[in-house]
């Protein structure tokens, strides 16, 4: 459903990568690896529709999409490096805010369930500034269960997570793919995501 042809990106005047082709159909996952600075984040941002590619096209269901096209915005859930949490709001308020921004479920029960899933039950009412990096990352990932979208684009989701968190993440990804969703994940770490529908893309 998401297809790219000959994507190329530049940083300044130098080329980051070029000729990137991929195709995702329901149930597919693309794991993007590469050294620091190889352009993983840039590629994910282009796929999410945030950035312009220097060359190449992106199409959703066969129709070419420009950056920030509404079709793409309604289909993608992008979780980038930045957690998008406000220090002054509590974990629950932050989650509610982010979920409702994407027209997801922001009802209290759903919020509590999502936070409980990520073992943040007791931190629910704490302001975000009191949370650790890993806990902030968990709050950010908690919206995966509140905002139903076919395509998840996750940039280094396992960063700062402990083993239990990584396991939870792989679990959710597995369920998502099994239900016909798609995912693009950039990662340094070994995410135990395997199967015939998981492809790797290495940017050197």
């Amino acid at each position, binding site marked *: 459903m998401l297809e790219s042809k000959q994507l190329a990106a530049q940083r300044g005047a130098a080329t980051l990568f070029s000729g990137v082709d991929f195709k995702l159909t329901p149930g597919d996952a693309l794991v993007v690896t590469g050294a620091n600075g190889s352009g993983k984040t840039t590629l994910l941002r282009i796929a999410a529709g*945030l950035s312009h590619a220097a060359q190449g096209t992106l199409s959703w269901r066969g129709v070419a999409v420009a950056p*920030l096209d*509404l079709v793409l915005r*309604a289909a993608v859930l*992008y979780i980038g490096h930045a957690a*998008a949490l*406000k220090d002054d709001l509590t974990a629950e308020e932050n989650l509610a805010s982010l979920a409702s921004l*994407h*027209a997801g479920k922001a009802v209290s029960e759903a919020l509590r369930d999502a936070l409980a899933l990520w073992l943040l039950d007791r931190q629910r009412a704490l302001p975000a500034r009191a949370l650790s990096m890993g806990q902030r990352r968990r709050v950010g990932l908690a919206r995966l269960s509140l905002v139903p979208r076919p395509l998840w684009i996750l940039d280094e989701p396992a960063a700062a997570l402990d083993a239990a968190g990584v396991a939870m993440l792989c679990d959710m990804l597995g369920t998502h793919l099994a239900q016909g969703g798609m995912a693009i994940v950039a990662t340094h770490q070994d995410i135990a995501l395997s199967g015939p529908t998981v492809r790797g893309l290495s940017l050197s």
Partner: protein
Amino acid sequence: MTATAAPVGRPAAPGAWHGAGWAVRRDARIALRSKAELGVQLLFYAIVVTLVPLGVGPDPALLRALGPGVLWVAALLASLLALPRLFAMDFADGTLEQMALSPYPLPALISGKIAAHWLATGLPLVVASPLLGLQFGLGADELLVLALGLLLGTPTLSLLGAVGAALTLGLRNGALLALLVLPLYVPVLIFGAGAVGAARTGLGAAAELSLLAAALLAALVGAPFAAAAAVRIAVD
């Protein structure tokens, strides 16, 4: 079929008013939590206004003549001072790109942010201006026109300033924003200060206030879209 399948056909964009409401609620809540920042800009306004008599001497006639201009220029500068805060935090912590990716129309979200920003930074200036106007010996009808003019003008300043703030996101140079935005502020300054001058001569400030209202309407219609375009360029 799966719960995560995308809807068939082009999705409808959720309402703009919902988006604006989301932004206002969130920004207002954050502003109320960090109360420390709220009064600073008002203090800046008061201090700048106080500096002028210290610079030109306390001659009442001179101050009366300068009053409207000084009160308006200081309001412009105070408005300018608050602008970086509009988008900077959201840009730094990744909220702004989430807003760009949201199904809500970005101009609506930005309008909500500007509204919350004006309530916290512009409205206090409007309320404080009659008090400060007394320092310059302005009469009652002049003070009224001053406050009305600022009520119409400061939202316009916030709207126009938002475009500049979005264009300069992430740039180190703070003075650049002033260079970009102050020329755009000139009409508001001219009509606002002119309104008080017209009230003083007894001609009535209807013309100037109407022009300020027209500028506000034009800014309400155009600025959110220009600011949204600038935000998209910044998060690219």
